[in-house]
Structure formats: C-alpha cells, structure tokens
C-alpha cells in the first residue's frame, strides 16, 4: 500500500491544494472532496468552524473569546479530542468577525459550557465527514475505519490509510450542520457525527499550556493601544464635571496652540483629536467648555441605601413560593432577621477603554477592539456609522482585561462617531479618571433576610429579598448606540432593562420565598453610575447577603455553619462541595464566634457556598484581622469547585485563583465613591484594589471532577460565595458581623466598639 507516498509526491510535485486521490489496488480512481473556495460564513456551514489545512493541521474558528484564562485552549482540546488529532496540530482563531460566527463572545462563563460544546459538536461532524470521505477513498466501509492522529485506516489492514490532509487539506468542508437558529451564547450546531463518550477521552482532562503567554511576557504582541494606522488621529473625550450637564459652547482659541487639534461636538458628545497622543490629552485638558447648569443628580452617598429602600419599585419578580411562608412566620418560635448592603463597584480595568475605528464610506470599515464581544461590538459600530453589519469588520486585540461590560464598548462607539465625523481613522482612549469614573458599574443593592425557627430549632420559613439598581441600565453588549455612553451623549433614546436576581442554592427549607425589586436609575442618561454586568452580575452581592445570613441562622439555632448547610442542602453535588472544602481546609466546627487572638491578631474560618448556572462552589476562607488597624488579611482560601467535566485542570485552577484575588479585592476595598455631582473615585488611590502585600498566601483549589456531567462555567462561579466566606470568617475571628461591603478597616473598627 503506497497511497500516502503517491499522494504526497503528487501534492509536492504540483504544489497545489487540489485533491485527486490515486488509489492503488484493483480500481484506481480520482476523488475530490470539499470545496476549493470557502463557503459563506454562515452558522449552518461546517466550514465556518473547522478547516483542515494542506499540512494536515486543523484550524478552528470560534465566535467566543478567551480573555486570558485559557478558554481557547479548552476549546482546542475539545476539537482535538473529537478529531483525533494531537493538540499541537490544532489552532483556534477567535475575535475576527470576518472568519467566525457570533457565538456571543465572552459571556456568562459560557465559553466552554456553550461555545466550546458547539465547536466540539462541529468537530465531531468534521470527523464524521472525513471518515465518510476516507471510506470512499479507501473503498472500505466507514464502520471498518479507525482514526489515529489524523490518519484514517482500515481496522483490518492498517496499510490502507489516508490522512485528513490528504483527504481535504487546503480545501473546505461543503456540508451543512443542523443549526438551532440561535446567535450568541445559545448557538449550537450538530450533524451526524456524535460527540465521543467520556470513556474515550485522551485530551480532555489534560493540561496543555496556553499559547499567548510568551508573547505577552516578552513584550512582543500588540495590544489594542498599539494599533496604528496611516493618517490615524488620537481622540480623547471631554466629559462633564456634573453628570448630566451638556456642553453649551466651547472656546476653540483655548486649544489653538496645539498642533492639528480638531474638536468634535454634537449634542452632549464632545471630543478632541490630534495627530499626536500627548497633544490630544493636552487638548482635552485645556479646552474651555461652558456646561449647562444642571441640578446635581445624585443623593449624598451616605444616604444611598436609604434611597434604595424608599424608592418605588419599578419591577418586581419572585420565584414561585414553596409552602406557605406567612403561616410559617406566624407559627415561629423565633424569627431571625438581618439586612445587608452592597455598593456600586467599578470594572476599573487595568487601563481605560481604547478602540480604533477606520470609517470607510465605500468598502469595508474596521473596528479594532478589546471588548469581550467583538461581534456585538462590530454590530454597534455599524449602527453608529450607519452601515450594514457586513460592511464593518470587527477585530479583537488584546486588552486591559475584561470581566463584563466594561468601558471598551464605549470607547468603540465614541471612536466610531469621531471617525465618521472626521473621515479619518481614530484611536480613542479614555483617561484613567474616565475609565474608573465613567465605566458602567455593578449595581448597589440592599438585601433583607428573615428566617422562621420552630421550638426545636428547625428552620421552617425562609424569606430573602433584594432591592437595588438594575443589573442592566445598559445592555451587556454594545451592539446598539442606546447602550453606549457615546450613543446616550448623542441623544439616542434609552432602552432600560430592569433586572436583578435571586440566590441560587438548594436549601430545602419547608416554606420559602425569594424575590427582588429594581428601582429607577439616579440619572437616566449619560450617567457615570449607569449599571451593567460586572463579573458574576449581582451574584456576589446576593450571595454575600444570603450566605452570611445562613451563618447567622446556623448560630441562632446552635449549629455549626458546615453542619447547618449539610442539614438543609438537598442537592448531592452541593453537599459534596461543602464537604470537600471543609475537609480540605481542616474545618474546625463551632457554634459561635471563637474570637481566637494572638496579640492584636484575631483569626477565624468562614464557609460559604453557591450554585451558578450548573456550577457549584464552596469555599473556606481563613482570615487574620488586626484588631488595632482593622485590616483584614485573607490568608488562605480552600475552594471546592464542581463544574462538571473538567477540560483542563491546571488552567481551571488558575482561573479560580484569579477569581479569588479579584473577589477579595471587591470584598475588602471596592466601593464607588460619589458626591451629588458625579463619581469621585477616579483612580487607584480613590478606588483602591488589592495589592501584593494583601494577596492570600495560599489558594488551595479542590477540583471536583464529574466526568458524567456536562461541563459548566468557571469564569465567575467562584466569585459568588467569596464575600460571604470572608464575612463569615471575620465574624468567627472577631464576633463582628459585616453586613455592609466592603469590609474596610473603618467598618471593622466601628464593630469592635
């Protein structure tokens, strides 16, 4: 059997991608598979997801985004697994609207859970198609073929073989998939090829490394801020000192000495540009603007939680009641109640948002963006430019981190407005004070909880309510101008979406109610306190309250917090993570705050748990509280993480580590400050985050692998119970119950009195 040699010689000789298989043996014949040119980029085309290259390597095209946690490597593993090719032979292309369909970008921890599974399914179909081609080429029935490392051979005669590259390398699949007609996260495709059973996995469950690291560490890869185009100008926004004020006039002479400066003004949108970046910055600082006289829109920050409690509810939702909550409270021997408060928080991304837009009225315009949703970003820029989406190409470039709807989408929209006005490519970057002051915020909220306890100490009623600003004053993507700062400044009508959430857990209290109310934004338009999704939207605040309250009720009924959870949890996976975290951490059962002290340092343990879209996380925090300074150090976390089938254990562990540090920062430090005019926390001094001296010494991640359960998300779930775990540990250490976040020294010391 010499088919490989013949084919390779043929290909080498003509240097062409044409596939004409010359079969040895009884009947030689030519067969050509696939299409010479790539079929249109449509969700139902297999070619939209998988290409076999001339050298036999595989390229996968992904419409989600990895933001630095290695989700792309997980997808590569899923593709390699289904295609039976080594991981090294698979590359994944993401973040370019010209070659990937919209799978929603980074969103809701669905990278593996939805986006990965979809591309895995496409890869399974690619394998199926390749085996069918091989059956034809080798004249062997498909069910008598096997695949090893991208080579298909007859089970009965290993010399009868042909590689993927030889079958279709350099050409394109021309078959269709069943598409569920969904765009975004929910997009799913399937064909005749079925995803492999877990027992056959060789690649899933291993830990190949990320591929973006060396370029980042060596300083050789471009970031969004590094994109440069011929004729490009640098843009800076000019935003009002009082939120809601609009520029009535400006004095061109005030910036006349700055070379090449241009001013872009329409309605409340005001920006400056210059060919040199430093000049654009100077112009934005020097431009004299007369602002409209507006009433300062915000309440005193000290009154924000009162405002939330008193403001009318504009939308209320409840889960269906379980049992009869009113009867339960009427018949209670004891009622425990508590209220919790959570501040606005900022994305405070590592750098303020930046984007480059090159508007071309004829031909194709281009957006370079570090948004986590480049397809939606492209749609938004097309809307801003007044062009159909297919006339705009969106290209992702590395950015300063993104954990939700940060300000990168606002930078893209603003760059589009300016590029269109000036007819030039524009690179717009916000300044630090805008990145922290004017990004969409995580919403502030209040939470009230009460529990009914019978005479035997059993919990018979549970009632949990949240009330706050919506999680979505602007949408979680920037596909419509109404959801961008630039669009709002231009006067596009708003599309406010009042949404909040309820605790995700499986406590089986006999009678229970969970609900939420959303109140109106403080300022409808152009607000620096407009809200949108920040990593695990509303999850940390809800679980901070609900899981703190679980501890409060445990102690009120004389139970240890771990034992109490195990008493009432009904889901076996939930119980398992609680047990795993407690065991690994060396949980010390207690039924009251232990207040263990050595010198000034009080130490304690706290546990909390929650679900998130299928994932379960329980964690034990161990804290040291300095009774003199009021400072909290979370010395150690032990995290039990069950996200079903684990694709890449090492990268999962590192993803959880990042969550823990970022979440500790949110728990201990982060609170947007504002006065009645605007946001006043505008840099790293006024909006501090955790620094190296405060980082945990140990983050021990216990991965609970469940190969029998489909993979769920890991980007956000461990963020969720963390604040309660820390608050519960602070209580064990000091006897002080933190009911308002963040847990600053001032709040701790107020409790010590």
């Amino acid at each position, binding site marked *: 059997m010499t088919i490989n040699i013949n084919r390779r010689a043929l290909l080498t000789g003509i240097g062409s991608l044409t596939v004409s298989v010359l079969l040895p043996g009884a009947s030689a014949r030519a067969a050509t598979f696939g299409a010479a040119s790539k079929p249109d980029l449509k969700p139902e085309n297999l070619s939209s997801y998988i290409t076999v290259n001339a050298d036999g390597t595989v390229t996968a095209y992904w419409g989600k985004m990895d*933001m*630095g*946690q*290695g989700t792309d490597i997980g997808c590569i593993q899923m593709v390699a697994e289904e295609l039976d090719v080594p991981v090294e032979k698979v590359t994944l292309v993401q973040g370019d609207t010209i070659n990937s369909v919209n799978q929603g970008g980074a969103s809701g921890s669905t990278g593996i859970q939805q986006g990965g599974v979809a591309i895995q399914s496409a890869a399974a179909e690619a394998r199926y198609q390749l085996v069918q081609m091989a059956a034809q080429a080798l004249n062997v029935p498909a069910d008598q073929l096997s695949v090893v490392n991208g080579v298909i051979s007859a089970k009965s005669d290993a010399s009868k073989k042909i590689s993927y590259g030889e079958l279709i390398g350099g050409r394109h699949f021309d078959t269709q998939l069943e598409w569920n007609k969904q765009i975004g996260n929910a997009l799913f495709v399937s064909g005749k090829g079925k995803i492999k059973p877990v027992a056959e996995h060789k690649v899933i469950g291993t830990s190949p*490394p*990320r591929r*973006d*690291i*060396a370029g*980042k*560490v*060596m*300083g*050789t890869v*471009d*970031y969004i*801020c*590094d994109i440069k185009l011929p004729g490009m100008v640098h843009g800076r926004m000019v935003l009002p000192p009082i939120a809601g004020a609009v520029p009535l006039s400006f004095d061109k002479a005030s910036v006349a000495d700055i070379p090449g400066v241009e001013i872009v003004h329409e309605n409340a949108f005001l920006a400056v540009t210059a060919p*040199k*970046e*430093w000049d654009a*910055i100077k112009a934005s600082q020097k431009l004299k603007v007369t602002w409209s006289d507006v009433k300062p829109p915000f309440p005193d920050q000290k009154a924000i939680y009162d405002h939330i409690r008193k403001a009318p509810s504009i939308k209320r939702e409840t889960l269906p009641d379980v049992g009869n909550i009113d009867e339960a409270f009427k018949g209670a021997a004891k009622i425990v109640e508590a209220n919790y408060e959570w501040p606005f928080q900022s994305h*405070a*991304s*590592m*750098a303020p948002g930046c984007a480059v837009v090159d508007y071309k009225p004829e031909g194709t315009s281009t957006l370079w963006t570090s948004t986590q949703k480049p397809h939606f970003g492209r749609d938004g820029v097309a809307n801003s430019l007044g062009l159909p989406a297919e006339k705009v190409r969106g290209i992702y470039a*590395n*950015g*300063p*981190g*993104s*954990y939700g709807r940060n300000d990168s989408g606002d930078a893209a929209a603003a760059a589009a407005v300016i590029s269109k006005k000036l007819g030039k490519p524009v690179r717009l*970057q916000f*300044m*630090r004070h805008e990145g922290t002051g004017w990004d969409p915020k995580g919403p502030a909220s209040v939470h009230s909880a009460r529990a009914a306890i019978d005479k035997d100490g059993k919990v018979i009623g549970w009632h949990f309510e949240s009330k706050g600003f919506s999680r979505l004053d602007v949408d979680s993507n920037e596909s419509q101008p109404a959801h961008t700062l630039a669009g709002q400044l231009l006067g596009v009508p708003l599309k406010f979406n009042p949404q909040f959430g309820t605790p995700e857990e499986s406590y089986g209290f006999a009678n229970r109610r969970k609900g939420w109310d959303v109140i109106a934004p403080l300022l409808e338009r152009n607000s620096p306190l407009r809200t949108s999704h920040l990593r695990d939207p509303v999850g940390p605040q809800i679980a901070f309250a609900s899981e703190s309250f679980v501890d409060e009720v445990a102690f009120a009924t004389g139970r240890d917090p771990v034992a109490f959870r195990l008493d009432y949890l009904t889901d076996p996976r939930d119980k398992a993570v609680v047990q795993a975290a407690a065991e690994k951490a060396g949980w010390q059962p207690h039924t009251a705050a232990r207040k263990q002290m050595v010198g000034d340092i009080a130490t304690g343990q706290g546990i909390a748990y929650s679900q998130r879209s299928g994932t379960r996380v329980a964690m034990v925090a161990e804290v040291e509280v300095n009774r003199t300074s009021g400072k909290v150090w979370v010395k150690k976390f032990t995290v039990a993480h069950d996200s079903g089938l684990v694709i890449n254990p*090492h*990268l999962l562990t*590192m993803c959880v*580590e*990042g*969550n*823990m*540090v*970022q*979440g*500790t*920062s949110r728990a201990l430090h982060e609170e947007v400050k504002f006065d009645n005019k605007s946001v006043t926390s505008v*840099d*790293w*001094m006024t909006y501090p*985050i*955790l*620094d*190296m*001296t405060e*980082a*945990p*010494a*140990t*983050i021990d991640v216990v991965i609970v692998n469940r190969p029998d359960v489909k993979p769920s998300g890991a980007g956000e779930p461990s963020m969720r119970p963390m604040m309660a775990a820390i608050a519960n540990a602070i209580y064990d250490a000091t006897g002080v119950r933190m009911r308002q976040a963040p847990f600053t020294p001032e709040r701790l010391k107020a409790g010590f009195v």
Partner: protein
Amino acid sequence: MTKRIELNVDGKAHAIDVDPDMPLLYALRDDIGLRNPRFGCGLAQCGACTVWIDGEPVRSCATPVDSVGAGKVTTLAGLSKDGKPHKIQQAFIDEQVPQCGYCLNGWVMTSAALLEKNPKPNDAQIREALSGLKCRCGTHVAIMRAVKRAAQA
C-alpha cells in the same frame, strides 16, 4: 516649545523633537514607535508603563522625557538578550502567570530589578517590593510563584 532630546532605548540611540514636559511614555510609543510600555493610569499608580532607567524601574507615564538625560532606558521587550528571555520572563512563562497581561511591564521589570539587588528575597520582601503595582486579573499568587522560581533559577 519643542526641544531636541536624545534617548538611548534598548541599546539604540534616538533623537526626537518633542515637548520636554511630555512624559517619557509618549516619546517611547509615539515618537520612537515602541509598543510594549503601556498607558494604565498616567499617574504613576499602576506600573503598566514601567521601564528601567539605568536599571531602576520608573513609571514612564509620569517621567518628563527631558529628565531622562543620558540614562539608558530598557523596556520589557529590551530585557531579553538575543531573543532569550530574562530569567524572570522565563519564570513568568513557566508559571503561565499573566491573564490579560496588560500590567506585565510593571511586574516583570520590578521583579527583575528586585532580583538584581536581592537575589534570594523572602516572601515578605517580594510582597513589599511589588506592593506598588496593580494587576486587575488577580494573578498575584502566580506572580509570587514565578518570582520565587526565578530566584531559584
């Protein structure tokens, strides 16, 4: 108002005509055309713009270009020798430290400078030396592993 300023960056001499009060960061990016020192805050609070001047980490976003004088500027991309990563870069690669990686200039340049002065720092010394840097992705524990790995290399 512009001034001819000579800079030595990663071993190469440059002469640029710029506003002498302009921060070094913009000279490196806009006038010399380098990419890796990045704007994070413009306030010397985060470290994303860090370069060395004569081996000392400085925040280029808050260093007037005129103040550099004859100082030799080294950037993250200039830290490697002949394409071979500096040992701290190798440790960051081996530990797969960065997530977004935007902040890396500060962490790598400051860690490398620390190890020059104190080749075997203890945990507290590492934490203190790196306390003025920001990482929003929360890779701090991986950074600790990498610096300790480099100290043992």
